[in-house]
């Protein structure tokens, strides 16, 4: 088997994974793509209506299908600055805002956590578990925790006009008294909830990257006169960059598909994300629209993450 050429050997080893992916992922996607070429059908026993070609895509991209969605799909563009009117009113903008902020903060917080966890100190195994454990919380529960925290008359983080809480009183950053019905506040709180949970994902991966660095390189760097900061900048960072990029890549993909935490904290109508549209239309039996949104979402994600792929190709030296 090893006398196969490198290419044949590579494909042989990939075969099991590819087979699984073909049957469980590629085949359904092809089917689903098929669905997106038919009309929705709400009555009668068949799921789909007649063949309509790419009409669903056209309808979605032109906004003609917005009525069937909990919110607009694409933002309203205007010719005046700011070019996007009411940023929170479209799923795409909400998703991009969520993705941008949550991935940014998760990376920073996760990085910092990983650096802490990388140290040697007594009790670090417990600290490690503590920092990682939010990732283990089911989204339903994560949603419940934050939902209740920000529920007036239940949680202590939001007050009433008579009895404001700290978060209601911090000037421009303060949240309203009913933050979870307000798209901007909800989005902000959902980002916080997401950062709380998902930083652990980042931390775990980055920690693993840190642990895989050959320690002797630090000796060289120290002798060469590198400060801690320079060691970080010139050794640690470039060496874990591939790991960080993988972590960010997958976080970005996941963030672009955010749904669960929105649904459990504020609801898809208040904070519409791309996945919200997919799931809502799916639950409303608009299977063709749902399939179409899913495919457009995938393309949008593909566009957004291509940034990483270029970076990744650089960092890995050929991808």
């Amino acid at each position: 088997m090893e006398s196969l050429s490198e290419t044949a050997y590579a494909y042989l080893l990939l075969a099991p994974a590819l087979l699984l992916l073909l049957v469980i992922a590629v085949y359904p996607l092809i089917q689903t793509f098929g669905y997106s070429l038919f009309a929705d059908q709400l009555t009668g026993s068949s799921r789909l209506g007649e063949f309509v070609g790419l009409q669903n895509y056209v309808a979605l991209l032109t906004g003609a299908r917005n009525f069937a969605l909990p919110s607009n799909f694409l933002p309203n563009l205007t010719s005046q600055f700011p070019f996007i009117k009411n940023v929170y009113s479209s799923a795409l903008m909400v998703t991009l805002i969520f993705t941008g902020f949550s991935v940014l903060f998760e990376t920073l917080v996760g990085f910092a956590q990983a650096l802490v966890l990388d140290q040697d100190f007594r009790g670090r195994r417990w600290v490690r578990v503590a920092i990682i454990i939010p990732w283990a919380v089911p989204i339903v529960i994560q949603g419940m925790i934050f939902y209740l925290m920000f529920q007036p008359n239940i949680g202590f983080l939001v007050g009433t006009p008579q009895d404001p809480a700290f978060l209601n009183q911090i000037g421009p950053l303060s949240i309203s008294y009913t933050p979870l019905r307000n798209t901007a506040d909800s989005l902000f709180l959902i980002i916080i909830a997401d950062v709380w949970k998902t930083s652990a994902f980042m931390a775990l991966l980055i920690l693993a990257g840190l642990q895989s660095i050959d320690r002797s390189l630090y000796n060289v760097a120290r002798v060469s006169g590198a400060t801690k900061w320079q060691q970080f900048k010139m050794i640690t960072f470039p060496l874990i960059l591939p790991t960080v990029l993988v972590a960010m890549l997958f976080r970005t993909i996941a963030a672009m598909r955010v749904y669960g935490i929105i649904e459990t904290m504020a609801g898809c109508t208040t904070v519409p994300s791309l996945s919200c549209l997919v799931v809502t239309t799916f639950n409303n039996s608009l299977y063709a629209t749902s399939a179409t949104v899913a495919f457009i979402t995938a393309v949008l994600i593909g566009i957004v993450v291509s940034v990483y792929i270029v970076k990744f190709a650089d960092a890995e030296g050929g991808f």
Partner: protein
Amino acid sequence: VSTGGGGGGGGGNTGTSTPISTKEVTEDVTVQIAGDTRMGDNSKAFKKALHDAGLPDNITVEIIAGSQVTNNRQNQYQQWLSGGRKEPTLMMMDSGWTIPFIARNQIQNLTDALPSDMVNTVENEYFQASVQTAKSPDSGDLYGIPLFPDFPTMQYRKDLLRNAGYSDSDFNKWATESMSWKEFSKVTKKAMEANQDIGNGYTFQASVYEGLSCCDFNEFMTSHGGAYFGNPEKNLFGPIGERPITVDEQPVLDSIKMVRTFINGSKDKHSLDGYEGNIAPSAVLQWTEEPSRKPFTGGDAIMHRNWPYSITINGAEDVFGKDLGVMPIPYGVPESEAQYPMTGGPVAALGGWHMTVNPNSPGKKKQAAVKVLQALMQEQFQLDIFGIMGWIPPRPKLLDSDKAKQVEVIGRYLPQLKVAGENAIPRPVTVVWPQQSSKIASEVNASYAQEKSPEQAMSDLKSSLKQIEQSA
């Protein structure tokens, strides 16, 4: 490879209208019921009640305690039925979404399948509003047996109202003779002034969710004489695309202004004259049932709109006991002044569940299922189960029975429930209702939150509803 894809229907739902034999089932059969968690929690008592009501011993009932997140369950059934699964045989369906299954031809047509006496009993003896949501809007055929209805009522703290000078005589009157929202606001205001330490006056649910469009808003609107689609008697369940959309009519706008007055007082640009303001916390904009109930149960509110389940909680001895008062939901205009039938006067949004039959089940199972349905329809069973699980009997007359009165806590409030039941208004369920519902909820909530004027919100809503209607 040939698949169900393309036109993609999946399971063939043949035989949704073939009659089911009502002969005795001779061998042992297990019937699987997709129920809910309450049914699951009380499954022993539930089964016993069934057998007490005449279910033969050779039929065993197996309960799947489905999720109470109702959307999830709808979705689950959707997959099971379109996948042609044979199990479960019986399915508990929310009256809020049974009609789409009927429209999809996915559940058994009971008018065709069951003996006509059973069907007649349902049509004649059950709460009318409930039965309507279990019938095909097109053919009028029955597809589900109502299991229990659910009607919200207004709960209040007698002890606090007494501080404001009200007495048992008032309470007794309110129990069956509903008051107007105007009066309600005055009573609440007065009580709030008399009880300065109580943080909230009137608590209800106005979060952006199905509960707002199906229920809270529906009640405010209908009690002011408004309607979503014109005459509810004619248009509630269709025909989609051919019915008027009337959300921008004055009664609807008035109801919104009234709620804004309740929350923000008269300084709101869009307040409604004659109503006391500032009786509801702005928190209602984010509240669903449970969060809204917490302050009331916790003793920090005077008035509270909720479903019967909360009567059981709040009326428990260790909470308020007899100090809990219940009355029907107030009205905006009397029935006589309302534009459409079924509107005006006291109203209660209709909730509740039906039992439906999976057409894909094998004949034997369906045959046994009929026996279960028969047991479910026994009055004795309905009263038993009212006592055990608090399911309100689907027959109005049972609410007058002594046995019902003996049920703890809720037995004290049957007259109020009966009034609510008789004035119940179903949500306008059609295949496009889920889409419309979310639009309604978000526009109404936005307007309540002073983000949009009532006029603006309702005209926006009207145009989205129109688009949805026309798409189907």
